[in-house]
């Protein structure tokens, strides 16, 4: 929210009707944050790149995606908003952007027992106990030109604290790593579901999504199931004739 709508707590969004030029050219990037993270350095640049590649691979499986560009974090400014995304659109030639955001909190302080994540669809409140680890990964997919949210795939992990005073820092670090893995797995699962649902949504609601072909496209000559019936009919007729 902070990246797309800086300085607005609860944005009122009035997107236009997206014109989806199929197959889509998609960009994928991590949302930059202001200031230092409190994640203990779990999600390093290398891990982020691996995560983006994994998400990109799931987009590539979709027949309506022509290409997917992994965009380095350096090209996104904190609070860059749609102005920043429009620059990426020109620079990388992408129409749609998948923004991955990440947040992790460990309740090491007895006094702090709830936390609010601000996601693009509203507040997500987490209640915790001491030494709990909460991780949230979120992929939001936007049509840049119309600023319309196409779909969203969150992944959440909650790990109950089992650390003692003796092994607290080591256990918290392990929990942080496991939290990222669990949240990633859940997000990827949701992403697959959302990609299928998005495909159905676009077909069912033509008034909400304008679908057009790109200027130059890939064509194919494909037989339908009916042609296999014709094949069977021809083979049967030939066999009957041969039998006399």
């Amino acid at each position, binding site marked *: 929210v902070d990246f797309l709508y800086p300085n607005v707590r609860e944005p009122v969004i009035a997107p236009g009707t997206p014109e989806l030029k199929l197959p889509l050219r998609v960009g994928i990037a991590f949302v930059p944050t202001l200031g230092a993270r409190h994640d203990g350095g779990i999600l390093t640049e290398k891990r982020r790149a691996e995560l983006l590649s994994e998400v990109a691979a799931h987009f590539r499986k979709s027949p309506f995606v022509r290409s997917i560009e992994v965009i380095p974090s350096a090209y996104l400014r904190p609070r860059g908003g749609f102005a920043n995304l429009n620059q990426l659109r020109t620079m990388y030639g992408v129409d749609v952007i998948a923004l991955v955001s990440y947040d992790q909190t460990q309740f090491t302080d007895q006094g702090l027992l709830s936390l609010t994540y601000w996601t693009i669809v509203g507040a997500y409140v987490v209640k915790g106990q001491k030494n709990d680890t909460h991780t949230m990964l979120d992929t939001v997919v936007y049509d840049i030109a119309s600023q319309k949210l196409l779909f969203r795939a969150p992944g959440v992990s909650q790990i109950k604290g089992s650390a003692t005073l003796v092994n607290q820092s080591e256990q918290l670090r392990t929990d942080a790593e496991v939290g990222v893995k669990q949240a990633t797995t859940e997000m990827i699962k949701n992403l697959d579901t959302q990609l299928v649902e998005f495909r159905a949504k676009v077909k069912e609601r033509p008034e909400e999504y304008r679908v057009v072909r790109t200027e130059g496209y890939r*064509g194919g000559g494909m037989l339908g199931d009916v*042609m296999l019936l014709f094949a069977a009919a021809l083979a049967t007729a030939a066999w009957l004739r041969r039998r006399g």
Partner: protein
Amino acid sequence: MATTARMMRMRVPICTLTVALTAGVVFAVPTLEALFVYNREAIAHGELWRIVTGNAVHFSAAHFALDLAGFVVGGILLEAARPRVWTILCIASAAAVGALLYLAQPHVIVYGGLSGVVTAVFIYLSLQGATSHTIYRWVYITILVALFAKSIAELVVFQPDLMSSAFVPLPQVHAVGAAVAFLVFAGTRAPQLTALLSSARRAP
């Protein structure tokens, strides 16, 4: 002995199996796909073989399976009966599909698929059966009429599902295949075609 003699007389459909195997290898090896696929820009730069070889390229497992199933059945039936016609028909329909795309479909940058050739084979087999003097003649006439109805319906009402396919299906290539089959049949069996058209005119 009799079985062995019958098997000896059976022709192995070498050409059909060769084309099917080639399509399989092209589907499995991406570098070959890049070399064979119909690519408008490459053709404009002199790579003319792509006009014909593009027919052997497929973009998904379902695309490959459906086209190959149809081609193997139709190809074996035609090659067993008329091997020379098989050669003429396959080359002519493949070239006609590529040529039509190049001349009349400038938006199609890349193309692959054997369905135009398969349609040509099916139409030819139906025409051949429909002009025969057997009791199964009406079965072939029914198949022929249904094939034409399907091809026309595809051209008139077909709406491609752009979200579900890795490519835009082009029903025009089926119409091209059908037209080529008619021309080849007219060229090789003109009297039979004239008789079929006369009987169609006499039908109530």
